Each structure stands twice: as C-alpha cells, then as structure tokens.
C-alpha cells in the first residue's frame, strides 16, 4: 500500500510562490511608505480592512450557498434588506445589538426565500436571486424614511489593550469595531467547519455530486436549505455592518454593488473562506487607495477616473481568473430524487 506523503512546507511555499511574492511586494511597499508617511499608510491599511469586511462576508455567504450547489446572486439584495431592517430596529429600539441581530435574522429569511424558490420549488437560481435583488431595492426604498437616526450612534471601536498601541499594526488590526472583529473570527472558523467537519464534508459532496451524497444517506434538500439560510445570515451581518458600523444610517441602495463584487471575491478566492479574505483585502486595498486619493485631493481633475479603480480591479481579476477557477460541479441545477 503506497501512502502519499503529505506536502512538505517547501512544496507549499513553492506552489504559492507568486502569491507570496505579491504579498511581499505589497508589504515592502507599505513599510517603505510608512517610513515617511505613517499616518497615510495607517489610513490606507485601516481602510483596506474596513472596505474588505462587507466583501468577505458577502463572499462567505456566496460560498456557503455555492459549496452546497446553489448559486446566490441575491447577496446584494440580502445585504440591502438587512442593512435597512437592522437600522430600523436599532433606530426604533435604541439597541445596536438588537439591530445587528435583526439584520442577521432578516438575512436568514431572505436566504429562506432563495432556498424556497430554488431548492424547494426547483426554480431557476439566477432568477430567484434577481427577484431578491429587485424586491430589496423596492421594499427598502418604499419604507425608507429620511431623518431617522441611531439614538446610540454607530458601533464603537474596541481596543485590545496594549496590542492596540503597536504602531501601524495596532491601529489596523487590534483596534476595530465589533462586527469587524467578528468577521476576522468568522473567516478561520468557516474554513475549519468547511474542511474539517462532517457538515463541511457533506456540504462539499452535495455541491459536487448530489446524487452520490443522497445514496449515502445525506439529505441534499436539507443541506441546501440549511446552507443557503446560514449564508443569508452572513449576508445579513454584512448588511448590518454597512448601516450600523460603517455609516450609522440607512441610505437608498447603500450596498452599491458590494454584493456583486463579493461574488467576484468568492470566485477569486476559489470558494475558500481564507482565499476569499485575501481577495477581499485586494479589493479593499484598491478602494482604500481610491479613498485616499480623493481625500488628499490628488488627481481631482478626474474624480471619476479614481472612482473606477476598484471596478477595474474586479474586471481584471475576473477576466484573468474566472476561467481557471473550478466551481462546485452541481451549481445551478435543481435537485430532485427520482
């Protein structure tokens, strides 16, 4: 019996050399700029994390769904509904915690809608997602009321004791708001769940070959309902982040395409939470640089030009990587047993 040796660290480093090289260049560039402009660098890096948070949450929603075989292009709508609902509850009750909780519950309900149409009724998954997006714009605009505020303000920064005093890294990593910290915890947690637990193994089996999973007694329909609802909850957290942590109020269409960029992040991250985080940081970095340019009044003759940076990154990434990434084999196909 030949037993394959597991990959040595050298092999792993070699196979990922281009990623490591890119990361090194970015780190060196950042340190170099930090030499003479520490405030600037800190702002860009903090901005990177801030911009990446809703993207990686959206991407984790997407991969929860797609790993079990359901395409979710309704992330945008799920986020928007939760941003609105979370804000309304927080504004009425005065409790931010209740608002975040409401955002998650609303996200799960939107997930249930997607699962109901595409898993239960075996409808077209793309259409189901589009329905959610359109409905979310309509509902949130209709019930939108100007002048509402959060009595308690938005969520506050938590400093992790002495860690927060480290130059640059302290402000970027150890002094953040609660949902950002929660997201940083959620990424490795979801990775572990997906690749080390029974649930994860079954999820991946259902997404790749549903009838194989069914013949060993795994309920395909049940797994898909569960995962799509959990994904909705994660998208809901992203929505709550936008209205309760990032902005502190609700605005019409405030998701502004983040749900779609999250899909690109998911693909770029190869349906892996950690990969998605790396991809989200790249997109976040692009957005943060753009913000800094505007803030510093650089190139302000052409503000639109600066504004397209994140989207150019999206196009380049999708054009360059989508073809090579392999999605779960059964996505998009409704499942029936007979």
């Amino acid at each position, binding site marked *: 019996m030949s037993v394959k040796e597991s990959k040595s660290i050298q092999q792993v480093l070699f196979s990922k050399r281009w990623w490591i090289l890119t990361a090194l260049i970015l780190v060196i560039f950042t340190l170099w700029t930090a030499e003479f402009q520490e405030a600037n660098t800190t702002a860009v890096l903090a901005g990177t994390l801030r911009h990446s948070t809703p993207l990686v949450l959206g991407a984790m929603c997407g991969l929860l769904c797609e790993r079990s075989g359901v395409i979710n292009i309704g992330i945008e709508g799920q986020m928007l509904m939760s941003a609105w609902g979370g804000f309304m509850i927080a504004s009425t009750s005065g409790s931010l915690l209740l608002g975040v909780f409401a955002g998650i519950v609303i996200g799960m309900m939107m997930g249930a809608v997607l699962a109901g149409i595409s898993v239960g009724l075996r409808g077209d998954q793309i259409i189901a997602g589009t329905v959610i997006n359109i409905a979310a714009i309509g509902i949130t605009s209709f019930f939108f009321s100007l002048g509402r505020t959060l009595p308690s303000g938005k969520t506050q920064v938590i400093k992790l004791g002495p860690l927060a005093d480290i130059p640059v890294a302290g402000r970027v990593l150890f002094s953040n708001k609660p949902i950002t910290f929660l997201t940083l915890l959620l990424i490795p947690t979801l990775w572990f769940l997906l690749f080390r637990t029974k649930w994860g193994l079954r999820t991946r089996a259902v997404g790749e070959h549903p009838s194989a999973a069914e013949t060993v007694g*795994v309920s395909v329909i049940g797994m898909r309902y569960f995962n799509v609802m959990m994904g909705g909850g994660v998208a809901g957290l992203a929505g709550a982040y936008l209205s309760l942590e990032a902005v502190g109020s609700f605005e019409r269409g405030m998701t502004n395409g983040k749900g779609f960029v999250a899909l690109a992040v998911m693909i770029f991250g190869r349906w892996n939470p950690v990969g998605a985080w790396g991809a989200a940081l790249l997109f976040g970095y692009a957005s943060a640089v753009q913000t800094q340019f505007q803030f510093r009044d650089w190139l302000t003759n052409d503000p639109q030009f600066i504004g397209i940076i994140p989207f150019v990154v999206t196009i380049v990434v999708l054009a360059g990587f989508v073809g090579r990434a392999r999605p779960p084999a059964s996505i998009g196909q409704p499942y029936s047993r007979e």
Partner: protein
Amino acid sequence: MSSNTLALEATGISKTFGNVIANDQINLEIKKGRIHALLGENGAGKSTLVNILFGLYKADSGTVRVDGKTVDLGRPKDAIDHGIGMVHQHFQLVPVLTVAENIVLGNEPSNKANVVDIESAKEKVRELAETYQLDVDTEAMVEDLPVGTQQRVEILRSLYRKADILILDEPTAVLTPQETDHLLQVLKKLATQGVAIIFITHKLREVLEVADEVTVMRNGQVVGSTTPAETDESGLAEMMVGRSVVLRVAKEEASPDKTVLKVNNLCVHDDRGILAVNDLSLEVRSGEIFGIAGVEGNGQRELVETITGLRNAHTGQILIGDSSITEFSPRQISELGVAHIPEDREKHGLIGAHSVADNLILNRYYKTPFSNNGIRQQKAIADYATEMVEKFDIRTPSIETPSSSLSGGNKQKAIAAREFSHDAKLLVASQPTRGIDVGSIEFVHQQLIQQRDQGLAVLLVSAELDEILSLSDRIGVIYRGSLIVTENSTDLDRNRIGRIMTTGSDST
C-alpha cells in the same frame, strides 16, 4: 454459515413510469452467502427493481422483508440502515474528494464536536482494503482513478457500512476482462463471508461462472429461476429473450460492391490523451454490413467519432470514396454521404428542446427545399416531417412536439428516419438499438438490412453480440483499440468472438 436463510425477500413489487410497466408483480428471494444473478435484456426492469430495493425509487406496490422483517425503504438511508449496499452503474462518488472521504461520507468517524477524524477514516479503509484484497490509495482523488478502481471504492464503501446484502448493477459493463475476473473473485470471497450478493448482468458467461442462483427477467416480469447447474448459455439466453436463442434477422446473402470506407493504420487518442484506437485498419464495401464486436471502452467510440469528424485522428488515414477525410469537418463528411446514428441519442442524436420536424431535417435544414436564401420554408419542412413520421411510424402527438418528450424507441426511429433518408453511401451506426423496445429493435434491424440491399455500406458498432451476429456480413473483433480478427460472420461463432473480445487472443 447457513446458506439457506433468507437475507432479503421481495414480494409483489410493481412500478410504472408513465405508461411503461417497469416491474410487474416481482417476487425475489435472496439467500445469505449466495450470489444471485439477475439476468435480463436492457429494459427488462432489473435496474428498476434494485433501485427500489435500495430506496432510490418507491414501488407502487409490494413488500420487502430483510431478515424476515418487513421494512420501509423510502430513502437510500433506510436501505443502508438495513444493511443493503449498492454499487451503481453510474458511480456515485464525488470526484473532487479523496478515496477515504468518499468511503466515509455520510457516516464519518468524528469526535464530539463533529470534527472528522480523517486519520482514523484512512486507517479503517486500509484495514477493509487489506481484508478483502481491494487495493486502493486512500489519499488519491477519485477523479484521478481509473474506472475499475473507482468501482473498488464503491464496493469498499458498502463494506464500510457493514452491508450484508450487496447489489451490483451491471458491474462488469465498464471493466476490462482482467478487472472482471478480479471482481468475480472478490464477489466469491464476499459470499463465503456470508454476504448476500445481487449481481445484475446480461453476460451469460459471468452468470455461469459465479452465480449460485439465477432469476431471469423479461419485460418487467420474472420469467424463471434456475441454477447454473441446471442450465447452460443457450438455455439462459432463451429464457432471457423468450424465443429461439440467436435472434437472426431474415436476410439475403450480401452482394458487396466497391469499397466505400477504408481505414488505414488509424491511431486516435481518447479524452485523457491515451491511445484508444491503435493501428486499426478496416474496409467496408457498399451493400454489406461490417460489424464491430467488442467490450465497450475498447476504442469503439473514438473510432466512430473519428470517422464522423467529431474527433481528430492522431495518425493514419480514413478514405470515404476517394476523399481522405481526416481533415474534414463533420458537415463536409456528412455531405460526402455519411449518415451517423450516434451512440448517445439524447446527447448527440437529437436536440431535445427542438421539434420533431426540426430534428428530422437537422442534417440538411440549410438546403433546398427546406431553406431558400437562408429563410426557412415552413411548409416544405412540415410536409416532409409529416411524411417521415408516417413512413417510419414515429409515435408523436404532433410534428411540433419537442423531441425530448418522445420515448426512447421513437427517438431512435426519428434519428433513423433522418439518417436513412440521406442519400447516404455509408451509415455509421453505433449501438443503434440500445435501451429500446423489442418492436423498435426489429424495425431498426429491418431498415438496416433493407438499406444494405439497396447498396448502402454499413459500419455497425454494438455491445450486443447477438445484434452483431444476426446483422453483420463481416465481423471485426476489437480489443484495446485494434481489430484482432476480421472474418465473414459465417466463420465466427459466439464463443470464439466472446473469447477474443475478452482476452484479445484467438487461441483456446
């Protein structure tokens, strides 16, 4: 080990799909430690029956008892819980997971927090593999494994679940002769350890070699039970077919004329880049049927695809008439007068969402009278389609019905109608009667003979040896991409062909 206790008993199982009665009051008794062969032609209802036993289909009526207790098999999980395991015809393995992950899926060793203990999973799989001599690499991705090994993984998966009733649905259809022999040994060993085995096949040799008991099915009914000691190949075949052993179609002596298709030293790669057709040469003359006999997967598909222009030749030459066609597109080849009945009618024969009428003109929709300067001529198309539907007895509600809603036999008739009305010089027919009803089979066979008598050259590829024997004027036996023997059909008998196609050698 008592060999007379019943492991499984099915009584009065019936199942209909639409108007088709797949199972009609089936009774079946499976004993512990015995290999029970379930024999029957395609469409006899064998697969339906075992899918019911494994909980994949729900029977309309009937009861199943396992170890004497009536059980409800609503889902595969119920069957697994009652110790029933199944090796599927189309493997139910997740290609991107490892062997160990596939085997433990659904019943994973884990700690209290539901974290999969993959090391203990690998260890258990290795133990099983050793016990039953089913060598596998537990860490290999299933998608990288050859078919025979994937089947081993499926068997191990059932054993991992401690199955004491093991169902194998046509397990040898995809195997090489050596793999088949090894599988039969494994089955015998499992039986001595008390496992009850239900073994589906339509290969008589295998039944006689390993089965303790045989149940024969035809048209959804059990037509008889026997044991290998009481019968022989011709006896089994007669039970299976329901009439005289070799179903010979009435035909005149062939009067072959000039060569239409000439294949010289052809080599072709399969999808994985492995040599599938290896230095193959053959010649088909007008007015004769050249049959290619062989176990599936010995290069037949690649040969047919290369002749019809769907696959590139690696080296060698194909001549149709005087044209060398290895660089031709499928349409150019079609225009030379090559008709093609493809192996997979759903995938390559018909456009399911298009109407019967459009499918009937699929090979010349762009020509007059069906097209005039690029505009479709609806009336000409409708008239032609109506005529064809009548002439070929295609049972369809209307010519506008999507072809996907026709039955298998009628789909095949529609393809035959299109290809036979093609003014063809050469017909390449691959598995022309697979999975269709007896009436349609006879119709297709008669058409093939009739077209031959009118001067068509026919290259017939079929996994059904009876079909090859009854239709062909000359037969080539293919093994691992090469024709081992090419002779007049009168000079070859069933046993000899069977021996060559399974061993690749003509010597006894």
